[in-house]
């Protein structure tokens, strides 16, 4: 039957065959020719989890940990699994309301999706953690506690030196060649940042399998491809944690800085910047809040004034000026200047605290009595030295000396963002004085004023140079890295001796140092004497100008003090600056002396302990800060009001008239105000008790 159509069976077979061949070609294309699908499948299913090793610990010179690692806990939530949880109870434990609870769940879903865990509350305070730990069995649906390693600071000190750990930003990611990914933690600021690569160790990778909902379900190939994490290495520093504690205590409620260096090694024993804060504030649950508070504080507690503060050195500069003059041969140790209470060599007199009586009859006496006229005079002698023919050449030479002393240049300390302060060069004076200036123009450079500024670190380093009679090591914190190898070159530059000023004769150094010893024994710093130890020191009382509200205001003098001891075998050199505090011998001197005594004798005499308390309790915060804070805060409140029309903050700063309209909000006609804050600062009486000076 129907055999007449039998040929069609071949066509049917042909259709089958062609279809299957087309399918086979596509399979060949997918499975053999194209290699991307294998990778796509791995991307789908394999999650390379980064395993972070413990960060290195930082120890002080006696191997006490200044910072350490500890575990805090994050409360994690997996939104889909939250079922049948007593949310009201959980809210009570966490001290939040149910609206906040819902908001956090929504945020988690937005951030990480509903199948993956997100942080519900990070870095639980110990009390909350304890409360939750006890009740965790109630919340096993969807909630769990996850360990989070964080830093802890057992001595509560050295916040500005150590820096902190924070999430990476896009800049760091780019600079690291994408080593970091968003969400990674990295050392921000301080030693944490400078030694990041040592401290962080080597991150490991664990390959985990995830399913279609991004849940992790196990190890990939039993961990065959995993790389182990290598722990971060510890740092051994020169810091003396007890000295640091003492120094920070004394800088309480003061603006300024303390730097103490071991002259023989350049190792920094103590570095304090006031005002200060507790490093533990930047870990834990209140981290964000505290960070905001510190950032908005106009006294800038986050600023490390020891390396970033620029201060005129004032009279503490005099030993340096003397050494330069001696080395240049413009004076001899026996050179004297007949000072009658002021220097009259130029148009304006430079006043001196003493008058007559041969108080500057020779170099030693001039240092001990801190004669301004003497040093103004020898500065002029130095820069007007006939052998240079021209004040500009002479000044350039003088500036070279300053840079050799490490003033006005970055020293290269092992902290990020050191400032170079300022020794102006000739071009600067040329610009300011249109090319016509003489040694009279900037004669107060001789007594550490004029445009000259230094950082406290530079000042301390210059004292080391004097103590060492011509050489120094770049100041640094880290003595050694645990398991240091040839490949660790980061510390090499701190082990190089800089013999920059050894051409100055030992006699010149001896003479200047003797003068500095006289300062303590019978000069301006008798309060700094330590029985049984020969201390060399120099006080300074630097004029303190500041531009506040667009006016250059002279504030109370800065109290400056430099010293080293013992004279014969210098073990510690210190520079202290206390802003707005008056005479160098009044505040900076005793602070330095107490630190030296503590470091050299390991204990303090009872009367010194009393002095410590006295200093620590003294509040020398400049009064303009409070005024500035008010202005800053009110501007911020005003901007907030402008942005949101929410007057909640602004109300604290404006007088409200009876109609309910703020008395002095800017009106259309008055807009824009000269200063934004002018418009909202009507309370003249508020400032009556808060003068600028």
């Amino acid at each position: 039957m129907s055999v007449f159509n039998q040929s069609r069976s071949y066509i049917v077979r042909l259709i089958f065959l062609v279809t299957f061949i087309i399918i086979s070609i596509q399979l060949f294309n997918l499975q053999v020719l194209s290699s991307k699908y294998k990778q796509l499948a791995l991307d789908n299913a394999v999650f390379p989890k980064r395993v972070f090793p413990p960060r290195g610990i930082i120890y002080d010179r006696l191997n006490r940990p200044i910072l350490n690692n500890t575990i805090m806990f994050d409360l994690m939530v997996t939104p889909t699994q939250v079922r049948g949880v007593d949310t009201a109870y959980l809210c009570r434990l966490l001290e939040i309301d149910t609206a906040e609870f819902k908001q956090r769940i929504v945020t988690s879903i937005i951030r990480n999706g509903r199948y993956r865990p997100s942080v519900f509350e990070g870095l639980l305070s110990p009390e909350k953690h304890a409360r939750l730990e006890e009740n965790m069995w109630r919340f096993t649906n969807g909630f769990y506690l996850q360990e989070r390693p964080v830093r802890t600071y057992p001595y509560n000190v050295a916040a500005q030196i150590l820096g902190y750990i924070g999430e990476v930003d896009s800049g760091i990611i780019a600079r690291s060649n994408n080593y970091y990914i968003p969400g990674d933690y990295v050392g921000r600021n301080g030693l944490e940042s400078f030694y990041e690569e040592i401290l962080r160790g080597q991150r490991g990778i664990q390959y985990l399998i995830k399913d279609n909902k991004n849940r992790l379900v196990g190890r990939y190939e039993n961990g065959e491809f995993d790389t182990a994490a290598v722990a971060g290495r510890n740092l051994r520093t020169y810091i003396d944690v007890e000295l640091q504690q003492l120094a920070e205590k004394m800088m309480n409620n003061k603006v300024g800085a303390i730097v103490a260096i071991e002259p023989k090694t350049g190792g920094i024993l103590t570095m304090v910047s006031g005002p200060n804060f507790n490093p533990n504030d930047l870990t834990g649950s209140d981290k964000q809040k505290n960070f905001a508070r510190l950032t908005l504080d106009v006294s800038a507690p986050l600023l490390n004034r020891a390396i970033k503060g620029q201060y005129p050195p004032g009279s503490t500069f005099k030993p340096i000026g003397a050494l330069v003059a001696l080395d240049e041969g413009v004076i001899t140790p026996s050179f004297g200047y007949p000072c009658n209470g002021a220097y009259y060599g130029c148009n304006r007199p430079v006043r001196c605290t003493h008058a007559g009586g041969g108080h500057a009859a020779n170099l030693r006496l001039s240092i001990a009595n801190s004669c301004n006229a003497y040093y103004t005079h020898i500065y002029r002698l130095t820069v007007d030295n006939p052998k240079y023919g021209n004040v500009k050449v002479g000044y350039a030479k003088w500036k070279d000396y300053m840079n050799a002393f490490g003033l006005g240049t970055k020293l290269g300390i092992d902290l990020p963002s050191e400032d170079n302060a300022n020794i102006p060069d000739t071009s600067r004076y040329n610009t300011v004085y249109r090319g016509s200036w003489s040694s009279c123009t900037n004669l107060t450079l001789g007594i550490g004023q004029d445009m000259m500024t230094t950082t406290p670190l530079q000042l301390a380093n210059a004292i080391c140079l004097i103590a060492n009679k011509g050489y120094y090591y770049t100041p640094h914190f880290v003595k050694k890295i645990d398991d240091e190898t040839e490949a660790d070159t980061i510390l090499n530059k701190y082990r190089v001796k800089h013999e920059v000023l050894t051409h100055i004769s030992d006699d010149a150094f001896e003479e200047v140092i003797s003068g500095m010893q006289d300062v303590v024994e019978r000069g301006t710093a008798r309060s700094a004497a330590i029985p049984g130890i020969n201390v060399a020191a120099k006080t300074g009382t630097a004029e303190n100008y500041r531009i506040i509200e667009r006016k250059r205001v002279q504030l109370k003098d800065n109290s400056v003090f430099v010293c080293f001891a013992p004279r014969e075998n210098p073990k510690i050199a210190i520079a202290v600056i206390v802003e707005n505090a008056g005479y160098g011998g009044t505040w900076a001197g005793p602070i330095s002396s107490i630190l030296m005594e503590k470091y050299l004798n390991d204990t303090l005499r009872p009367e010194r302990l009393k002095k410590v308390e006295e200093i620590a309790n003294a509040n020398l915060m400049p009064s303009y800060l409070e005024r500035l804070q008010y202005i800053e805060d009110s501007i911020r409140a005003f901007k907030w009001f402008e942005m949101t029309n929410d007057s909640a903050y602004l109300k604290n700063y404006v007088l409200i008239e009876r109609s309910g309209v703020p008395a002095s909000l800017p009106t259309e006609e008055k807009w824009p105000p000269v200063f934004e804050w002018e418009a909202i600062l009507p309370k003249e009486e508020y400032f009556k008790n808060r003068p600028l000076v």
Partner: protein
Amino acid sequence: MNQRNPAISKGIDWRLVGLYLLIVGIGITAIFGATYVEGDNVITSFLTFKTDYSKQFIFFILSVIIGVFILVTDSKFFAATANLWYAFGILLLLLVFPFHTEIKGTESIIRIGGFQFQPAEFCKIPVCLALAKYLSLNETDFSKTKSQLIAAAIAILPAILTILQKETGLALVYFSFFLVMYREGLPSIILIIGFSVAALVVLTLLLEKNTLAIILTVFAGLTAYSMRRQIKRNKGLLINIVLIWALCVGIQRFGVPFIFKNVLQNHQVERIYSTIGKEVPVEYLKGYDASTAPSGPRMNTADYNVKQSKIAIGSGRFLGRGLLKGTQTRYDFVPEQRTDFIFCTIGEGFGFVGSMVLIIVYLALLFLIITVAERQRSTFSRCYAYGVAGVLFFHIGINLAMTIGLAPVIGIPLPFVSYGGTSLLTFSILLFILIRLDADRQMVIR
């Protein structure tokens, strides 16, 4: 008569049985690979029948038992009761409308107790039988248009009922019966027209409206020009050319947009556009509101399945990642991976080699069925065999093509391999009836 000689093994083509067992074996292995959960005790789960692979195994046993029943049945029984079965099948399809249970958007499933039954799947058997019966009737002269229309109606009636149950994929299967009609003398021109319309639809989707219209016009013009001598003699030819041109442009400009706008559902439109790799035009999406729609390129949800499926198959490379080693199928990246997308497990686990083995086995089965068909003395058996070949070919071809991105996603199972009781039973019964008929190939059955 055969009843007196009850050796049921007589005349059975063991090659068919062998290929059947081989493919079912591959299927159960693949389902095992797709659904095995780490830590399962394989033996226990086979005994407790709680896992998918063990359930499929039961259905296999059940299929074999039914197969044996079929083999002991008189081969005349199938021809004699074909129309009855057809009536029964249509009745079942109609019963779906009042009694269906809605599951995953389909309205084609009847649930009796814990047992789910899909008449649209089962109905292939009656249709295959009824069509063979009609074509083998002495009074049927298949060269007549009337007979061709009746035969087409037998196949298309259940297809229409299935479309009404929102199972377009299953409905398309009924068009595979045109293979039978083609073998029995359906003029080639009908198939050529069918293919041309299909090609025109594909071109409509691929090309810009006006571009295609111009191409068609140019094509018509060229045809008219090359045939100008014949046209001089016979003006009717020109009219024909113009009519065909008008029909083509009509389909392209109005027919296809009409179907996409009014007949197809959103997910079907998306699947079709996903296959050709283009974004769905807004006017084809029902309930689309430009003001509320998110900006940026619209997500084509159909893309995900095919993309994951291609990744799974592609990641198998030449030799495969090994059973249970494929991450795509182990961790549920491919949706429906034990049913419609079961081929992914084979592609990922056994690679190009494994996939080719399965394809060659399938091809061998199809070729064997054609060979079997051609050796039948009775038209009924031959038509039935072609029906089985057509149904299997359609399922295999579309299913494989959709998993590798050559065809739109149409939810039809891979015969003997995909998980699903109704599907395995239906295909087994189809094949066992063929084996039974073939055993009596020297007999003329009406």
